[in-house]
């Protein structure tokens, strides 16, 4: 992997940044305040292939490499963490599993509309009793004549309020011992499938996170993704891909907080000097800059491994773990540097702080990431 951005990646960054600053910049504060999903900006993103970043051309995507994808998520998140979340979840866990495990018929049926952004994707594992422990899932999918009947509740679904083809992780054969899980594509409008209230969350507030309810919801057997029992495999693979996106998102949020801190510290004067002249502030800024760079490189390293066709689970977990930790630390320090103003909702810094925290929780908590990494390193030959 080369350490200096190539011309293509420079141009990708410039272009996405230009869009994000012009279209999301003026409203980022307001959509967080009002917990409003900006459908009008989503409409503009559609024409730029933001919803089909890595989808093959023949399904209407941009077929971009993973670093281009990571840069896109980073630049959107730098302006609005909530919208960066929408795009990454849609691309990584909403479409990618269909591309990897779907039949050609399923790909033709679902992917083009997802890639164009006409439909928004989501992936639902989490339930009231199943967070880190996926085996706690109780949503069931029971086979009948020509399909499956799904019953259960999924919570904390990113894009829940606007998704059209969420992927549902459910237990098939719930009564048999050794319960196996499978993944189903459930289409909006299917009787028995309803969307709950939008959650009132600390951060990522412009993203319509909600619960999804399934009450005797019948889906045709053509909507089973992969085979019965493939659930865990699909789920874990989806998360590996998703973690690269979350890592990129965390880098973007940290970057925004860091830039704000540098600017503020040059302007704010105390004791007749700009606070950027104080060693303690300089130390903090230096650490911020270094850690964000390190996080970014870890994300790109995971991208490189994925695009190279190698196993990338450990690399993706490392990237997500480190980037999210850095994001929390950097945004916390950013608030501190801004002092009282950092604590005010009138400034953006506290939004970065609130948005950063959840990157340590979703798509596998930091504790789970450590488990994944440890498992990997302990199974490696000396």
């Amino acid at each position: 992997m080369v350490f200096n951005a190539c011309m293509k990646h420079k141009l990708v960054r410039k272009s996405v940044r230009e869009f994000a600053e012009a279209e999301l910049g003026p409203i980022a504060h307001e959509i967080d305040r009002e917990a409003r999903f900006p459908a009008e900006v989503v409409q503009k993103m559609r024409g730029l292939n933001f919803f089909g970043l890595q989808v093959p051309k023949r399904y209407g995507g941009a077929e971009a490499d993973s670093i281009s994808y990571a840069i896109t998520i980073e630049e959107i998140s730098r302006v609005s963490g909530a919208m960066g979340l929408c795009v990454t979840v849609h691309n990584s866990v909403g479409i990618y599993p269909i591309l990897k495990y779907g039949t050609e018929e399923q790909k033709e049926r679902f992917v083009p509309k997802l890639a164009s952004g006409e439909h928004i994707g989501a992936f639902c594992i989490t339930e009231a009793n199943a967070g880190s422990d996926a085996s706690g899932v109780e949503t069931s999918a029971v086979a009948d004549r020509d399909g499956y009947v799904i019953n259960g509740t999924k919570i904390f679904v990113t894009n829940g309020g606007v998704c059209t083809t969420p992927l549902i992780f459910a237990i098939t054969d719930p009564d048999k011992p050794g319960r196996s899980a499978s993944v189903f594509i459930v289409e909006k409008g299917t009787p028995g499938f309803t969307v709950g209230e939008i959650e009132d969350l600390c951060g990522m507030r412009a993203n319509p996170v909600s619960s999804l309810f399934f009450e005797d919801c019948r889906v045709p057997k053509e909507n089973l993704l992969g085979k019965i029992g493939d659930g865990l495999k699909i789920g874990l693979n989806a998360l590996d891909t998703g973690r690269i996106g979350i890592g990129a998102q965390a880098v973007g949020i940290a970057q925004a907080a860091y830039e704000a801190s540098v600017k503020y510290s040059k302007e704010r004067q105390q004791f007749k000097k700009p606070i950027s002249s104080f060693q303690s502030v300089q130390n903090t800024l230096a650490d911020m800059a270094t850690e964000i760079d390190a996080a970014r490189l870890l994300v790109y390293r995971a991208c490189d491994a994925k695009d190279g066709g190698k196993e990338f689970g450990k690399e993706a977990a490392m990237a997500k773990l480190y980037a999210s930790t850095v994001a929390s630390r950097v945004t916390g320090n950013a608030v501190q540097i801004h002092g009282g103003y950092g604590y005010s909702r009138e400034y953006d810094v506290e939004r970065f702080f609130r948005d950063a925290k959840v990157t340590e929780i979703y798509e596998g908590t930091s504790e789970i990431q450590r488990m994944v990494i440890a498992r990997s390193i302990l199974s490696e030959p000396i």
Partner: protein
Amino acid sequence: MAAKKRSIWVFGDYRNYFQNRVTLQLISRANDLARAIGAEVCVTVFGHGVDEWVWEYSCHGAHKIYVCDHESLKFYSNDVYIALMEKLVREHEPEILLIGATAFGREFAPRLAKRLGTGLTADCIGLDIGEDGLLVQTAPAFGGNMLTKIVTPVKRPQMATVRPGTFQEIPHDNDAKAEVVHVPLPDDLPKDRITLISSVRQPARGQKLEDAAVVVCGGRGMGSRKKFRNLYELARILGGEVGATRPVVYSKWADEEALVGQADKHIKPKVLISFGISGAIQHTAGIKDAGFIIAVNKNPNAVMMKMADVAIVADASQVCTALIKELKKRIRS
């Protein structure tokens, strides 16, 4: 044969005369330059029914005026005027040729310079004669943050376009008499390759901001829409206008009408007070002709602060409020 007298030429751009006085301003500067190199000031006037402009130029400092008055020259035309000017320039070989940087001038001058194979400097804000007798042209670059001094050492005439308002015209003198030379219409002038379908004079839109003597400009540093609006009160008290930067207009703290910048309104106030503006090129390009500048910014190193005559390191909104308060006290009396 007597040596040709050296001359400095000015293109007579008489369209919109009365408001557009750039030709008079150039004639005035040409007089200064002419004294330095021992030359006469000549003006060219192409058009139809142009006696009034010939008279005006005569009264404002022209020594000689070349007039080509014909029906076919009624409307400004690049193709025709360039051919005509080329003939005259090759015949009389002026040292210097000055053209006002009106929209027409800014298109006419470059094509003419290329036709004549000579150098051209655009939008000059200064013209002087250097030690070696060359015309030293001072022009802005990078949105006015930089100034360049340019010369055309070899090629002639030395050409420059000049922004209206750069120089002061010589006061009208009824007794001044220029030598008027009537140039017959050459019979080999080209046909205009561009057809003018219609030309409608626009009503003079309120140029309040562009013409204001006092402008109060605000940027993001004002903090909020509410605080920004105080600038309107300050402007009212000073009898001036409010300008804004692009980010501020985008956040809807001010109207599009107030936008000052490179691609927007260019202002030339005698006094400019800049509040909470960092000095991005896109903005400073619109204020480079301002006179006395007072800048208020928390950041003492901001570009705007370096450009100012007085740099106030403080919170922009607080200074605005303090200024309003003090002005109200003093003006009441």
